[in-house]
């Protein structure tokens, strides 16, 4: 993505944090406010980063994915249930990833094999996820909870030894596992997508599947694989909600974060680092909303709450420069 855009995003993140410090109550020290905001920003950015990476792989191979929300919701449910049943958080994470991949399989099946319009397919997955999790929540979970099913708890924080003791920026380095994984995945995704043969083939399939086909790349196979990888990452993002954020499942716990992740992807120009920067921005806005009350920022919480969504629209309207999607994004591939 363009340098200007990247700098603008980071600049806005910093501005938001400064804003919170400045507008906050005088009795809370600015160091505490800044530290809290920084740490919370990274934490809240986690599901959005993962969702954006999920969308990245799908869309780079040419499959539009607006079902990130549904994948994360289903995975959140599956992860919690598995973790609670086995009292093992690791199994919970694994099941979360698998659930995401299952939804991804459906999406790929509908849009690659049946060539259903990819936005319809994505919408179907969202509706299915909302319906299934809601149904199973009332039908299954409440009965299980009554018979003593308890949460497996939350994933513990993994602080980085020396860095986490630094003043002000120390708290940034005390994050839970999935948050760390999300940052690592950004770097891995960047490397894989732009420095490996697999990534080259993926991008080829997304830009010009016809040409890729003539060179011998199996277009449908690549699309299936990338959708499944993306969906697995989305599954990890879903696991964040019920295994890292709060130790329980509620209906619609994802609350639109999947769509914001998609916006972050577009905002970031379909690149890993760009999407991450955008995710940090949304995380900061989210953190501001949560911390505003605590630090006495005198703006109504709903007005602040609008900020991420307004920002997305402003970005999409190209106010900060246009982004170009993969050329064959959204077009089902016809083998002639």
């Amino acid at each position, binding site marked *: 993505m363009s340098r200007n855009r990247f700098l603008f995003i980071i600049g806005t993140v910093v501005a938001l944090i400064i804003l919170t410090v400045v507008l906050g109550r005088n009795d809370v020290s600015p160091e505490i406010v800044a530290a809290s905001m920084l740490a919370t920003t990274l934490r809240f950015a986690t599901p959005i980063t993962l969702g954006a990476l999920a969308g990245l792989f799908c869309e780079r191979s040419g499959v539009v994915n607006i079902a990130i929300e549904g994948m994360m919701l289903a995975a959140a449910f599956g992860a919690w249930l598995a973790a609670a049943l086995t009292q093992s958080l690791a199994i919970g994470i694994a099941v979360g990833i698998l659930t995401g991949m299952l939804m991804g399989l459906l999406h790929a099946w509908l849009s690659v094999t049946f060539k259903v*319009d990819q936005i*319809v397919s994505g919408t179907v997955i969202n509706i299915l996820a909302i319906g299934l999790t809601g*149904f199973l929540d009332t039908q299954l979970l409440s009965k299980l909870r009554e018979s003593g099913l308890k949460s497996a708890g939350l994933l513990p924080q993994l602080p980085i030894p020396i860095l986490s003791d630094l003043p002000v920026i120390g708290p940034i380095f005390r994050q839970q596992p999935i948050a760390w994984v999300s940052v690592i995945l950004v770097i891995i995704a960047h490397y894989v997508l732009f420095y490996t043969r697999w990534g080259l083939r993926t991008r080829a399939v997304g830009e010009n599947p016809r040409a890729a086909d003539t060179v011998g790349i199996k277009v449908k196979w690549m699309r299936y694989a990338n959708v499944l990888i993306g969906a697995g990452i989305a599954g990890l993002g879903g696991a964040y909600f019920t295994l890292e954020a709060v130790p329980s499942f509620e209906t619609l716990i994802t609350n639109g974060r999947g769509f914001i992740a998609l916006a972050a992807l577009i905002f970031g120009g379909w690149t890993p680092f760009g999407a991450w920067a955008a995710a940090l921005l949304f995380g900061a806005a989210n953190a501001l909303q949560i911390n505003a009350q605590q630090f006495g920022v005198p703006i109504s919480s709903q007005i602040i709450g609008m900020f991420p969504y307004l920002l997305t629209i402003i970005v999409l309207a190209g106010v900060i420069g246009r982004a170009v999607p993969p050329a064959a994004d959204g077009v089902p591939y016809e083998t002639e």
Partner: protein
Amino acid sequence: MNAQMFRRLGRAVLLPFLSIFTALLVGGVIIWLSGPKLNGDWFGVKFVLDGYAGLFLGAFGTQKAIIGTLVRATPLIFAGLAVALAFRCGLFNIGVEGQLALGALFAAWVGVNLAGLPAILHLPLTLLAGALGGFLWGMIPGALKARTGAHEVITTIMLNYIAAQIAGYLLTGPWRDPNPTNVTAQTSKIADAARLPMLLPGLHWGVVLAFLAAVAVWYFLWKTTWGFEIRTVGANASAAKYAGINVARNIILAMALGGMLAGLGGAVQVSGVNYRSTLGFNIGYGFDGIAIALLGRTTPLGVVLAALLFGGLRNGATLMQFRTQISADIISVIQALILIFVAAEQIIRWLYHVPKQRDEVGQAALSKGWGKS
């Protein structure tokens, strides 16, 4: 009607009908899997049948049930029309939820604050206010798409969330019902003069408005020049542009009119059912509208029939839950399944060996990815 028209009608209805049937079948399997298996219960099958019996009885079985279904279907008709109209222009209107909310807010404001007007003025003003609110909320993503290429899928979804925040702010703050007994986020009740009168006990005139809206949409799309332009843009935007049609203006118009329909739906709910605007009453109508529009093949008649079906399912779900403890959320699952089978009609064709007729047109691609964003 001659035999050929019957056959064409039959073929048009066959696939949606089979989709619904198969979805109910799969839904039945899910219910069976999650239900109790008691002795003398045919391995739990009777449980499923009891559930579905309750569902259909609650939907269409008694006069009270039918009235309930019609009332439930009314906002769904508006939502489906809103989505279908946008589809016809090649646009994806996922913003019905927000447009409905804005319409309800505008309508509630007029209903509460212009009290004292005679009904012959107040009621139409209330409904028009709702239409205006939805119109504006639909125009925004339309204008963004037309002028900047911002894809309407994301902008409408974002506007949904913004609308929710606006509603949250207004309904817990300035517009909150000041009545000391009120503890929920809602406006005061609207004036009597702003309420839709009842056609039958429990059945308000909003139902008639919904049907009229469907007729109006049909007329607009197929009998007017504007409608023709919108449909042409939807079929092939480049060809439309070459023919001299102002594509940008039609995109804005289609989204704005869709929003207007959704806003009107919200106003009808305020004026006919709740008599106030409550927080969150609009949740779910967005996706329902999409499902109904697709199931009804984006035609007004199809939308009405699909809305009646969905309204019936939701209405019947309450009785089903009451009788058999099956959670009403299964309806969302069944709806999703219906949608899957409608969208991927090859599955249905394969299952029931329905061959493709020569004159049948496959489902046109509704969108082409993100375009240049």
